C-alpha cells in the first residue's frame, strides 16, 4: 500500500509540475539557448584538427588514415577484380563458376541440402539481373568480414588476457552497440573520404564489437580443465592461446563470425551512403526515386546473399567429418567454367534474355493496392495519427526536461540505488543540454508507440507459440528469417503503402522489432519450471489461471528482457527511418551525414545512445527486482 502511495504521489507531483510550472520556470521546459553545450562544434573542430594538424611525430594522422585506406584498398581491388571487374585482361569469374563454387562450399559445410540452398540463392541473384551489383557487394563483404573477425578476436583475446583492458573496453563496447551507425558514418567519411574503402571501414566498426564480446564469452566458457591441461603440459602463452583456447572455443567463435557476416550485410545499404556501391546503392537509389519494384528486387538479392552466407557460416560451426577433394572440385569448376565462358558468352555473363524482372509486377501490385484500397489505408493511417500518434507526441514534447530528469532519477533510485538514479537523470540532462530535447522526445514517442504495438502483437503470439510445439517451430522459422533480413528491407513495403511520414516509420519499426518480443515471451514461458505448473494443475487451476497466475508471472523477468531487446531493435530501426522523413534524432544524424557535419552527427547519435542506455538500465533493474521478488514469492507459494 505504502509503495503504491509513494508512486502515486510522485506521479502526481510530476504531472502537476509539467502542467503548471511553465510560466514560473520556463528554463525547466526549454533548455536556455545560451547554455546549450557546443559539443557539436567541439567535435567538428577536433575532427578538423585531426585531419589537418594531428601528428604522431613520424607521420601525421592523415597519413595514417591514408595508409589504412591503402592497405584495405589492395585486397578490395583484388576481390572486385575476381568477382566483378576482371583484371589483367581476364574477365571476372563467370556467374556459373560462382554458383557452382558456392554450392561446393555449401556441400562442404552442410551437405547436399545446403549445397542446393546456397546454389539456388546465388542463381536467384543471376536470374533477377542483380549479378554485377551483388558481386560488388560480395567483394566488400569478403574484405570486411575477415577484418572484423580478426579485429574483434584480437580485442577479445586481449580483454581475456588483461582484465584491466576488459574493464576499459566494456563501456566503449556498450556505447558502440547502442550508438546508431549513421553517427559514425560522418567521421569515417571525413577521415577516409567517399568510396568503398570508407564503407568497409564503417562496416568493420559496426560489426566488430559483437565479435569482441562473443570472443570474450567463448574463451571464458572453455572448461577450466582444458586450461589446466594446457598449463600442465607446459604450454607457452602462445601455445595456450592458439593450440588450446581458441580451438576449444571454436563453436562459440563461429557464432561470432556468423554475427559479423550478418551485421556486415545489414550495413550494405547504409554503407552505400558513403560510397559502397553494389546492391546497397541500387536499393538506396530506387528508394530515392520511389521505384519500389527496382528497390525490392535489389533488396531481395541482399536477402538471398544473407540467407546463403548465414546458413553456410552456421553450418561451418558444426564440426563434420569432411571428405576431401573439395579443392580439386573447386579448381575443376574454375577450369571448366573458364573454358565454357570462352566458348559460350552466356556462361560469362548471365544473358539478359534469360533474366526475369518482377520490378514492374511489384510496381503494379502497389499501384493496384493504392487504387483500390487507398481510402481504407488512408483512413486507418489518419485515424491512428490523429487519435494516437499526434496526441502522444504533443504530450511528450510538452514535458519539462527537468521534470523528466527528476522523475527518471527517482525511478532509477527506487529500482536499484541512487547511483542508477544519478546516471539516468544525468544522461537525461545531457540530452537536454545538447539542445536536442524536442527531437529526442520525438524519438521517444515513435519508439514508445512502436514498442507498445510490437509487444501487443508479440506477446499473444509468443504465448500461443509457447503452448504448441508445432506452432513454435513455424513461428521460430519465421522470426529467424525475419532477423536475417537487413533492416532496410522493412522500410520498403511500408513506404509503398503509406508513403513517407511518422506512420510509415512506425509500421517499419514494429515489423522489425516484433521478433524479439515474440522470441523472449515464448522462451520465457517455456522455461517455467514444469513442476510448478503441475502443482497448479493439482490444485485445480484452469488453463487460464495457470497462464496468468503461474506462467506469465514467473516468465516476467524474461519477458522484460524481451521488452528491452524490442526497444533496442526499435531504436536502431528508427534511425534508419529518417530516410522516410521523420523529424527525430535520426533525422538530425541523417542531415549531418548529408552535410558531412561530424559534430552534429555524433551528438545526435550519442543522444540516441543515451536514450537506449537509460531504457536498458531501468528495465534491467526492474527485471532484477522482479526476479528477486519471485524468489520471495516462490517461498510464500508453499504456504
Amino acid at each position, binding site marked *: 500500500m505504502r509503495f503504491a502511495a509513494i508512486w502515486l504521489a510522485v506521479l502526481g507531483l510530476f504531472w502537476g509540475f509539467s502542467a503548471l510550472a511553465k510560466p514560473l520556470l520556463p528554463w525547466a521546459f526549454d533548455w536556455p539557448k545560451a547554455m546549450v553545450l557546443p559539443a557539436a562544434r567541439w567535435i567538428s573542430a577536433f575532427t578538423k584538427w585531426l585531419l589537418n594538424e594531428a601528428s604522431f611525430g613520424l607521420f601525421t594522422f592523415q597519413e595514417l588514415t591514408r595508409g589504412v585506406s591503402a592497405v584495405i584498398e589492395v585486397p578490395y581491388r583484388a576481390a572486385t577484380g575476381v568477382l566483378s571487374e576482371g583484371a589483367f585482361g581476364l574477365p571476372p569469374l563467370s556467374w556459373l563458376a560462382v554458383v557452382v563454387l558456392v554450392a561446393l562450399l555449401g556441400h562442404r559445410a552442410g551437405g547436399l541440402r545446403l549445397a542446393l540452398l546456397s546454389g539456388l540463392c546465388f542463381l536467384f541473384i543471376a536470374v533477377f539481373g542483380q549479378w554485377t551489383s551483388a558481386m560488388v557487394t560480395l567483394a566488400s563483404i569478403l574484405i570486411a568480414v575477415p577484418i572484423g573477425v580478426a579485429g574483434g578476436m584480437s580485442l577479445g583475446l586481449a580483454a581475456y588476457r588483461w582484465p584491466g583492458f576488459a574493464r576499459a573496453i566494456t563501456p566503449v563496447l556498450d556505447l558502440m552497440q547502442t550508438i546508431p551507425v549513421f553517427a559514425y558514418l560522418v567521421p569515417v567519411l571525413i577521415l577516409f573520404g567517399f568510396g568503398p574503402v570508407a564503407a568497409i571501414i564503417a562496416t568493420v566498426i559496426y560489426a566488430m564489437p559483437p565479435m569482441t564480446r562473443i570472443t570474450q564469452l567463448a574463451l571464458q566458457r572453455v572448461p577450466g580443465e582444458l586450461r589446466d591441461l594446457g598449463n600442465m*603440459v607446459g604450454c607457452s602463452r602462445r601455445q595456450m592461446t592458439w593450440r588450446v583456447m581458441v580451438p576449444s572455443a571454436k563453436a562459440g567463435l563461429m557464432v561470432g563470425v556468423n554475427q559479423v557476416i550478418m551485421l556486415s550485410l545489414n550495413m550494405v545499404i547504409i554503407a552505400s551512403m558513403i560510397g559502397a556501391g553494389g546492391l546497397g546503392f541500387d536499393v538506396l537509389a530506387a528508394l530515392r526515386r520511389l521505384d519500389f519494384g527496382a528497390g525490392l528486387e535489389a533488396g531481395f538479392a541482399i536477402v538471398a546473399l544473407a540467407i546463403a552466407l548465414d546458413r553456410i557460416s552456421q553450418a561451418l560451426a558444426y564440426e563434420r567429418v569432411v571428405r576431401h577433394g573439395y579443392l580439386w572440385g573447386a579448381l575443376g569448376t574454375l577450369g571448366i567454367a573458364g573454358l565454357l565462358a570462352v566458348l559460350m558468352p552466356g556462361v560469362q555473363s548471365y544473358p539478359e534474355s534469360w533474366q526475369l524482372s518482377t520490378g514492374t509486377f511489384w510496381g503494379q501490385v502497389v499501384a493496384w493496392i493504392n487504387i483500390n484500397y487507398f481510402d481504407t489505408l488512408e483512413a486507418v493511417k489518419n485515424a491512428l495519427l490523429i487519435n494516437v500518434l499526434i496526441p502522444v507526441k504533443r504530450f511528450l514534447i510538452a514535458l519539462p526536461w527537468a521534470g523528466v530528469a527528476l522523475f527518471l532519477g527517482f525511478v532509477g533510485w527506487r529500482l536499484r540505488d541512487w547511483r542508477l538514479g544519478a546516471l539516468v537523470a544525468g544522461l537525461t540532462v545531457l540530452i537536454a543540454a545538447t539542445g536536442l530535447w524536442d527531437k529526442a522526445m520525438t524519438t521517444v514517442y515513435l519508439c514508445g508507440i512502436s514498442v507498445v504495438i510490437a509487444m501487443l502483437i508479440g506477446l499473444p503470439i509468443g504465448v500461443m507459440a509457447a503452448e504448441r510445439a508445432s506452432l513454435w517451430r513455424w513461428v521460430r522459422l519465421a522470426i529467424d528469417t525475419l532477423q536475417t533480413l537487413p533492416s532496410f528491407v522493412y522500410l520498403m513495403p511500408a513506404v509503398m503503402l503509406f508513403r513517407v511520414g511518422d506512420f510509415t516509420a512506425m509500421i517499419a519499426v514494429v515489423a522489425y522489432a516484433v521478433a524479439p518480443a515474440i522470441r523472449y515471451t515464448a522462451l520465457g514461458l517455456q522455461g517455467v519450471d514444469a513442476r510448478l505448473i503441475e502443482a497448479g494443475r493439482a490444485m485445480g487451476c484452469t488453463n487460464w489461471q495457470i497462464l496468468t497466475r503461474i506462467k506469465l508471472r514467473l516468465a516476467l523477468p524474461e519477458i522484460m528482457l524481451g521488452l528491452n531487446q524490442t526497444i533496442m531493435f526499435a531504436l536502431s530501426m528508427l534511425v534508419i527511418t529518417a530516410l522516410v522523413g521523420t523529424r527525430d534524432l535520426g533525422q538530425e544524424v541523417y542531415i549531418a551525414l548529408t552535410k558531412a557535419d561530424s559534430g552534429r552527427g555524433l551528438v545526435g547519435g550519442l543522444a540516441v545512445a543515451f536514450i537506449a542506455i537509460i531504457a536498458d538500465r531501468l528495465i534491467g533493474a526492474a527485471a532484477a527486482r522482479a526476479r528477486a521478488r519471485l524468489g520471495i514469492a516462490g517461498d510464500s507459494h508453499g504456504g
Partner: protein
Amino acid sequence: MTEDASGPAPKLLCRNVWKVFGPKGAGVLADLGMDATAAQFEARGYVAAVRAVDLAVAEGEIFVIMGLSGSGKSTLVRCLSRLIEPTSGEIWFHGQNLLTASEAEMMQLRRHKMGMVFQHFALLPHMSVLQNVAFPLEVQGVGRAAREDTARKMIALVGLAGREDALPRQLSGGQQQRVGIARSLAADPELWFLDEPFSALDPLIRREMQDEFLRLQAVLKKTIVFITHDFDEAIRLADKIAIMKDGAVVQQGTPEEIVLHPATEYVAEFTKAVARAKVVRVASVMKPLEGAAPAISIAASAKIADAAPLFLQEQALRVVGANGATVGVLQRDDVVALMLGG
C-alpha cells in the same frame, strides 16, 4: 600424522599448505592465524579451500586423497603443481621448494616431471586421439615422427591401438579417459596426478579402469597422487590414504590403519561399510608365537580374507615374514572377531 625419519626421503613433501580464495587471501590468513576454522573465513567472505595440509608421498607409492565433493581435493592437487598458487606453505620436490620456483622453472617441471589426468578427460576436441596423446610432446617441440611414435606406444599401452585417428567425441567415456591417461604418460613423468579420473564413468567401467590402472602402475611404478570421493576406490587402490574434510586432512595412513583405527567419527562413517577382511593384513591381527608353531603357514602381508578359508581345518596359522621366518601366529578367534566385530 607420522612424519618419521625412517625410510627413504619422500618424493613429494608438503608442509602447512594453505589456499584461501578471495582477493586478499594472504592478508586474511595472516589476520586470522593458522588455527582459524573454515567458518571464520566464510564469515569474511573467503573460502579456505585447503587448510594446513601436511603430506609426504613416497617414491612409487599410490597416495590417495579422499574426501566428499567440495572438501578441497582438486584445489590441493592443483596447488601441488602450482596450477593454483597456494596462499602459504612449502611444497618440496627434488630438493626444491616449488613455491619459490620461477614460472619458467615450473613450466619445465610440468613438462618433464608431472602428468595429470582430469575428471572430465579434458581432451582437445579438434584433435584426433593420436594428436591428443602426442600433444604434450608437441608442446615441448619434439619432432613429429618421434612424438607420434611415443604416442602410438602409449595408446597401445592403454589398449586403444587401432583408434588413433578417431576424434574424442567418437569414443565412449571409458575410452576417452584411456586417451587422457595415455596423454598424461606421454612425457614419461615421475609424478602422476589423477583428479577423480574414474568418477565420470559408469560403475562397471569404473571397476575395469581401476584394474587397468593397477596393472599399469605395476609396470610403470610412478609416484601417484590420486583423488577420489569414493572410499571403496581409495581402499582398493591406495598404499596410503589422506582423508580431507573442509579443506583439512583429518587422518592419513595406510588403508588398514584407517579402517582399524578411524581417528574421528567422520572417518568412522566411511569405514563402517567396508569389509575389513579385505583391507586388514595378517600382520595386524597376529599374536606373538607361544609354544608350538602351527603346521600351515600364511604370509604376514596377506589379507585376512585370503587366510579365512584355511581356518576350515585349522585353529591357528603360522605367520611368516617376507624372508620365510616365522614372525607370529594367527588365531581363529581373532579373525572371527575382526570379521564380525564393529
